[in-house]
């Protein structure tokens, strides 16, 4: 009797469990969307497996830069309404230009160059946080204002020169290991660390608590100022690191290399299923959203649609994701 029941229930339980998973993990939708765009892009092309392989390889390569800055932005957005870092593109540019100028294509200076890029990120983060905490400027305005400053410094130090990265570094950034792009491996490492911080570490709990209700978090023993400090500085450090990686990948830093990451970093947070109201974020969704955004562009390209359509679609997608997400919250 019981055995029969079990047999009958098994598939139902499976379906139920799947539904439960989908409804609990918002980021599954982002993966489904990425897969759908991938298939759509393939249908437009004529090649077979080889083309699919190269498309995926490119997708993972370009997604990895978005993933690293997206993770930084995700932590900032988690802090709650009004928290966003708009200085990511300028920080990337500044770190990239300063580090490449310092290395001057000399292969022996890669490690100090990396440290300089991270140091620039650190400095930018401290500056942002100083504006936000000491001057009490709203984060949006503070980071936007400081991004002009960072960008100006980058222009002043770079003077339009394009310095090539050291050859070994460029080979690493553009190369792959076991068929996986090195950039993607680096981004994966960052993602794992971020996941541990968010889901398993005490600081992660504190970030999530501060994002839900800052006052209650403070009264519950959370050192909220330290949490904000860590998040803003960490985000800028990730941006600086991405700037270094991207400059090495694309054969030198240029002054508009960060531009598209302003929208991208926010878009992947939203599409990845993190709540823009704060307090509820996830790392896997960042990957799905970054892949989706790249594949969307490739799909539109392969159907022969231009950059204008792509931007319109990106905007529409962000708006509809936010609307859907807020509807869901309302029902619960």
């Amino acid at each position, binding site marked *: 009797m019981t055995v029969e029941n079990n047999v009958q229930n098994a598939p139902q339980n499976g379906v139920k469990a799947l539904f439960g998973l989908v409804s609990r993990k918002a980021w599954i939708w982002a993966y489904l969307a990425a897969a759908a765009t991938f298939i759509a892009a393939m249908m437009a092309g004529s090649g077979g497996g080889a083309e699919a392989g190269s498309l995926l390889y490119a997708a993972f390569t370009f997604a990895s830069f978005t993933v690293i800055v997206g993770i930084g932005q995700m932590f900032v957005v988690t802090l709650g309404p009004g928290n966003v870092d708009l200085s990511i593109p300028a920080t990337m540019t500044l770190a990239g230009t300063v580090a490449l100028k310092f290395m001057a294509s000399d292969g022996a200076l890669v490690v100090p160059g990396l440290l300089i890029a991270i140091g620039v990120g650190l400095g930018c983060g401290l500056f942002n946080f100083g504006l936000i905490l000491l001057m009490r400027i709203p984060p949006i305005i503070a980071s936007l204002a400081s991004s002009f400053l960072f960008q100006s410094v980058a222009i002043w130090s770079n003077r339009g020169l394009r310095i090539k990265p050291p050859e070994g570094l460029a080979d690493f950034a553009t190369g792959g290991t076991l068929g996986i792009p090195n950039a993607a491996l680096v981004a994966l490492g960052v993602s794992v660390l971020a996941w541990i911080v968010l889901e398993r570490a005490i600081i992660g709990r504190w970030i*999530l*608590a501060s994002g839900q209700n800052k006052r209650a978090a403070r009264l519950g023993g959370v050192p909220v100022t330290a949490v904000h400090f860590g998040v803003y500085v960490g985000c800028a450090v990730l941006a600086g690191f991405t700037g270094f990686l991207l400059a090495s990948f694309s054969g030198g830093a240029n002054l508009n290399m960060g531009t598209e990451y302003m929208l991208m970093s926010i878009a992947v947070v939203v599409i990845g299923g993190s709540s823009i109201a704060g307090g509820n974020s996830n790392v896997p969704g960042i990957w799905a959203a970054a892949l989706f955004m790249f594949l969307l562009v490739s799909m539109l390209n392969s159907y022969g649609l231009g950059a204008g359509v792509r931007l319109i679609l990106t905007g529409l997608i962000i708006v509809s994701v936010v609307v859907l997400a807020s509807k869901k919250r309302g029902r619960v």
Partner: protein
Amino acid sequence: MVVNRKEIGTREVPIISLAGIGVSFGPVRALSDVALNIMPGECVGVVGHNGAGKSTLVNVINGRLSPTTGEARYDGAESKADFRNGQRARQAGIRSVFQELSLCPNLTVLENMRIPYRNMPWRNWRGNAASAVRVSLDAVFPGNGIDPYRVVGDLSIAERQMVEIAIAFSRRDIDARLVILDEPTSSLDGSIADQLLAYIKKFCAAGGAVIFISHMLGEIFDVATRMVVMKDGRIIANDAAHTFTRDSLVDAMGHVVADGADSGDGRKQRELGDEVLRMANGLTARKGEIVGLAGLAGHGQAEALAQCYLERSSDWRANRAPAVVFVAGDRARDGVMPLWSILRNLSLQTLVEFSRSFLVDRKAEKKLVADWHRKIKIKTDDVESSILSLSGGNQQKVLFSRALASSAPIVVMDDPMRGVDVGTKKEVYRMVRDEAEKGRTFLWYSTETDEILECDRVFVFRDSEIAAELTGDDITEENMLRASF
């Protein structure tokens, strides 16, 4: 220029007449069976303890609340139970000044005057409003020197209060005939308050009516011609002012029928330790003591508690041995993390205490929560379910556990029993006593007298200062009321 449709000083009909008024919010009865007539020329003083129903009464009169039962007649007109009492009250010339200031801080004084004056003539309204405010300010507070073109946000608290009062008495298309003043003098100094009282007398002599709510009994005795004493949503005394004395008024307000048999039992037998807390305002506490903060709501108790907590904890680092923990009363604002499970809500305070590294020790967390789930009987099968699936009382238990699970020697409680059922209250009283016996110190702010009676020592607050310190057998409701007023 301005047409007067209702003149001040028509003495025949009551401006407002309430009969059998009851107001319920769900199961809570805020007012029951209230009858009150206010004739032109009267100044009615309304007194009562926290939650006696004064504010609800005022809101029924000015039409912001519709009574659940009973009749409210404005100017003797037919009473209808619909939602237009606000308009009727305005038509009858009823105006209100609230304790929490209700001016728009980003607008100028004269623009704030424009807001309640809905059908003000358009032509040159700024000039007219400025002169109307000017006239009214000079009438009520001679020599005030407030410029109507100043932005309210730049004024001091006292000046804002003066502006709000002046706007309530100002001249519009319908004259002010009944002005409700809810704690109008709380932020005014003595001489300014005297100016107001003098103006109220003049206003009433000219046929206007005033409802005056204050905790300053001296002022009430000064201006009121009639006293209304409220308790538990009822009017328990309503008589000419000269029939009361200060003591008889306090007696009339007080004395909730005390089942005082078991309260205070725990108090006498306990040995208290050394002093562990001393604050600048004179608040002290000893090891193992339950210290109560009493007095009327909004007299600085919550601020004192927040200061005590914030001084002893840091924005920058979390301590493995915290000096103090906080139990919130306003759960949504100060306590609950709405997106989280019961488990995560409960463990928030103690994460650094039970985890050895920077990672959360999830085994220790589960054990801690299971212990408290059993100990404090949180009504749920699954501690992984959302905190919002619990009733208010059970959410409060989670917040209690969050704080008590810590090793902190001092526990600060900001009116934690708000909206909690009787059963939970009894459990929490017992837990607080047990913990105090183990040597923890509690600072307990409460608006409910029977909770204050549980305490070993009581500080009564008035105007953000400690008005009295009561110990032992002096902790009675009567003494607390005397110190509060």
